[in-house]
């Protein structure tokens, strides 16, 4: 049971504010914002998602730079409230197509309408976009997605969240196409976020895949859908440490450590032939989340060398090799590495003929940044950085710098080899043939090489 719900912009302005129970004083948004902003004097630490000020419990999640907040005075389940906030954001996104400060401000009346139906007197009534459709009457004012600039400071908030832009479709579930007709289509995205830590000798210390099969349906009439996955998929690794790589390699089977499903999913034949059947509700939702620690081939190999060159100088050499097929490209690759605190300057040297690469030395936090627009499978890229120190380095430089971290997106590639073998839509008539999109994407979650 919650008392208030509100959405704040990055500057702390109320975009929407709904008081459900009148138990918490009106100034709560200010109190909350001040607390979050100045959680620790040095500004080094983020406020936790849940905290208590004078008997009021504040919950918040950050979505596209906006703060979605709930307050309550009672001892509720934190995961329920946090999940709810996340879900409210998703419902709003389903309606508006694009979730941003701009779209929220333009549609705040619609958002109020949604909020009234989602929560009554603090109790959740429904978060199903499907159900809400019959209660909500405002038409969304759609904000053009192409016009949206990635909000400057919002990027800080984006980093922490694991949501990805680009894959989800930016189209409202209620808005009609310019022609007045809705296009019948369904999107299935297999999104895998990978975490790998390499030791200083290049050996894999830990690796994990967190995958989601995300669905967004624009099909009318709620037809039943069957999704078939790899037949050799197995779930749960019996006995022993889950990090035991020996048993799994070579056998070819895909072994998930664990997975969970959306409530609309029927698993009747899942054990038999690995098919999921469901009647997809409107809007975007995860059909299945899965987790895998089975060994896989990391898409990038990172090599980093630091050589001292005199008392005030050193050279850093970073090599990145793409270990995936040459018909696949990785996008928006960024390599970062913290340098010793006493680094004064860094001169970069890219390989000859390098295109679409940029380098930067972030003076404020002494970080090296190397951006590559595109990396073609199988290629290798090198960066040399000559560092100048403001003081003599006495300690081991490798203890003062690193680790190298990398962010990237690889469309049409997934490391787990989990596949949607087919996507069957129960036919209404012979002419019914909606568009189906099955897309794969691999993203870095935490991709780190120690030095």
């Amino acid at each position, binding site marked *: 049971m919650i008392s208030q719900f509100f959405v704040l912009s990055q500057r702390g302005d109320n975009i929407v504010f709904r008081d459900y129970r009148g138990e918490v004083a009106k100034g709560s948004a200010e109190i909350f914002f001040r607390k979050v902003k100045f959680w620790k004097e040095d500004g080094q630490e983020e406020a936790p998602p849940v905290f208590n000020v004078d008997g009021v419990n504040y919950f918040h999640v950050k979505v596209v730079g906006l703060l979605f907040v709930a307050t309550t005075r009672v*001892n509720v389940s934190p995961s329920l409230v946090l999940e709810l906030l996340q879900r409210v954001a998703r419902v709003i996104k389903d309606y508006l197509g694009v979730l941003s400060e701009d779209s929220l401000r333009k549609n705040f009346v619609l958002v109020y309408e949604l909020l009234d139906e989602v929560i009554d007197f603090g109790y959740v009534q429904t978060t199903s976009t499907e159900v809400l459709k019959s209660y909500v009457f405002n038409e969304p004012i759609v904000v053009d997605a192409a016009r949206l600039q990635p909000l400057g400071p919002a990027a800080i908030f984006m980093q922490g969240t694991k949501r990805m832009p680009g894959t989800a479709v930016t189209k409202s579930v209620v808005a009609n196409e310019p022609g007045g007709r809705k296009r019948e289509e369904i999107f299935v995205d297999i999104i895998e976020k990978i975490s790998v830590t390499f030791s200083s000798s290049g050996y894999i210390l830990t690796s994990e895949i967190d995958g989601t099969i995300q669905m967004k349906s624009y099909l009318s009439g709620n037809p039943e859908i069957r999704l078939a996955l790899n037949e050799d998929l197995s779930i749960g690794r019996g006995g022993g440490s889950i990090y035991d790589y020996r048993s799994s390699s070579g056998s070819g089977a895909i072994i998930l450590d664990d997975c969970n499903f959306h409530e609309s999913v029927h698993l009747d034949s899942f054990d038999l032939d690995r098919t999921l059947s469901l009647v997809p509700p409107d809007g975007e939702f995860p059909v299945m989340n899965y987790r895998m620690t089975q060994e896989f081939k990391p898409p990038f190999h990172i090599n980093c060398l630091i050589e001292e060159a005199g008392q005030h100088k050193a050279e850093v050499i970073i090599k990145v090799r793409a270990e995936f097929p040459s018909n696949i490209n990785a996008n928006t690759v960024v390599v970062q590495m913290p340098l010793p605190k006493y680094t004064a300057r860094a001169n970069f040297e890219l390989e000859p003929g390098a295109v679409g690469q940029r380098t930067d030395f972030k003076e404020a936090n002494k970080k090296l940044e190397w951006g590559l627009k595109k990396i073609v499978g199988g290629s290798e890229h090198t960066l040399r950085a000559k560092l100048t120190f403001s003081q003599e380095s006495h300690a081991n430089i490798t203890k003062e710098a690193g680790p190298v971290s990398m962010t990237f997106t690889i469309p049409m590639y997934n490391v787990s080899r989990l596949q949607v073998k087919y996507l069957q839509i129960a036919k209404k008539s012979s002419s019914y043939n909606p568009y189906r999109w099955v897309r794969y994407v691999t993203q870095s979650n935490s991709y780190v090489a120690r030095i």
Partner: protein
Amino acid sequence: MAPPAQSQRSPSPSQPSGKSELSDLKLQLRKFAGSRAPGVDDSKRELFKKVISYMTIGIDVSSLFGEMVMCSATSDIVLKKMCYLYVGNYAKVNPDLALLTINFLQRDCHDQDPMIRGLALRSLCSLRVANLVEYLVGPLGSGLKDSNSYVRMVAVIGVLKLYHISASTCIDADFPSMLKHLMLNDSDTQVVANCLSALQEIWSAEASRSEEAPREREALISKPVIYYLLNRIKEFSEWAQCLVLELITKYVPSDSSEIFDIMNLLEDRLQHANGAVVLATVKVFLQLTLSMTDVHQQVYERIKAPLLTLVSSGSPEQSYAVLSHLHLLVMRAPYVFSSDYKHFYCQYNEPSYVKRLKLEMLTAVANESNTYEIVTELCEYAANVDIPIARESIRAVGKIALQQYDVNAIVDRLLQFLEMDKDYVTADALVLVKDLLRKYPQWSHDCIAVVGNISSKNVQEPKAKAALIWMLGEYSQDMQDAPYILESLIENWDEEHSAEVRLHLLTAVMKCFFKRPPETQSALGAALAAGVADFHQDVHDRALFYHRILRYNVSVAERVVNPPKQAVSVFADTQSSEIKDRIFEEFNSLSVLYQKPSYMFIDKEHRGPPEFADELGNLSIGEAEDNVVPSQRVEENDKDLLLTTAEKEETRGSTGHSQQASFGIDDLLGLGMPAVPDAPPSPPQLKLNAKAALDPSTFQQKWRQLPVALSQELSLSPQAIAALTAPQALLRHMQSHSIHCIASGGQSPNFKFFFFAQKYKESSNYLVECIINTSSAKAQVKIKADDQSTSQAFSTLFESALSKFGIP
């Protein structure tokens, strides 16, 4: 960036320049009020939007109330909704104007469109104006009987809103029993769920006032209701499932097959993508199996994978909530998670609130088999750019060192930290090395060699400085320069701002003096002089004390200041196990995130039902009948909860003392007091009234007022444990010994009883709290008495009565 002050907001295009805008709006609204011209609704929409946007950013637009109400006569549902929103917001501050809205809202409650009926009813109940309640009862009554489930859904919550405006109106109209009927019969699960929420809230608020409330609350967790809800659980929305699952945790199944049935039924809820459902299910599993040790362990194994999946699949905020619960479980059963330690490794892009939790978990799961890997990983973080996390990691290494038997490898790592030459690393490492030496003095040689190389000038943080000084004093015989380092620190006495450091300095120089007098004498003199002149009271006192004790006798001083020390085996745990258990009982709540039981952070009026009653589940009045009569609850006040541990010790001490004292006086005066027991071996002469009577409220009052006279732990015979399948068995037995039960509750293995007894032909009462744990075969007994002097005698009687339980 400065936080926005309340008055000064960022300029936004919709900001009105002042009063003129409002009056302008007012005029325009008036213009449209009566108009039915085509297109007027669109213009109204724009105006309404403007009003609501002002409302959102905190501008008071209540002066438009009249105009808004006038404009509300419309068939446009979007307009209606905006109007309802506005009215709901301002009715409370304008109760007179709110009356204006009643008319059209009541009319809308009879609209043909169920949507409008629902909306109007919701708005009507949201006015929160006390003198309008009479208008609510009628529409609510028909709303509950409406053929449309949306209207019923709204009406149920409406009843709850009415209850909050005027509880008596709600109860008098008999709404709760209508909700109860709906809950058990409605076809729509959201209506059912809302009934459940409303009834829970109403009955727990009524608990202190009404006689029937406890019975009604009990009824909610009775078998038929629980089974009815369980059987339909998959029809409920995911949020309502959480509600039902939470209710199930309060249900006490009659036997283990019932427990297994419930768990099998709920098994697949663990695979739900919604973390809240999974955690609620986990709570059910954990609570149901508390008394079944083996199954409880299996539950841990079963819930591990789903929880870990939730951690990695959700947003960082959701991961945090789930990780906090995992943390609680890890602390309870570290061995279950010890092979999963790699899941708790930090990722560089995680927020620090997640990293902190993970560090704590790594500390908790460290054991002989994984310590090496964990410590290696933690050492990586120590060099991290994120300084708070780096420091936390170093402390984690230290904690692991203190909990391990084999610290060889760890000591080396810690010493490497000292050589890293980063101020904050050195600071934390010094504190750790000090603690380590207190536990493992055998490592002093290796540590001191490294510590000796640290220049005291590079150590600034008081805690670290104090640690360094402590080591200088403690190991001055092994550290060549110790007297001289101390001497130079004393020379800078005035620049040392921390009193803690100055106190340590005094003690260290004393210790050093006993070991190396000639080298230290002058430093000691300087330190004592500076200390006596110190403005800080503690420093001054300590210096003076040292000075005097030295003058009195140096060897006595040495025995006082530098006695041979025993290694510390276990460092004090900061949280009592009682508090930890309470947090565990409150699984899937904020208590777990804050690591505090709810009474520490929730105001009393929002705490819902009295904690104590909650804990006991079905505490029942102890009539010796088989059908359990629903109970009068005994509430323990907060103070009791807070003080229990400390109080126990205190009372133990003081009772012993007073007992002796009273015996002493008896002897002295040579009076024979019949009520006072003789020496323990002889049978007690206390006689109890077999037909004693005490009403629950008196009991409650006395329990609060009286101090604990005696508190002890008794062992129970195996026969007694076997006989104690249900509380009733013990009640009857104790009654045969003239000890009556006033309330009892709990389930295997934990039973809790409140007994009372009266002295024969006197109105002197004894009150007993008895907590029996059948798995440990122990009973914790607390006795309070009107007449303290006879409590020992009563205790003996109670003990003998209890010891005969289960023996035919």
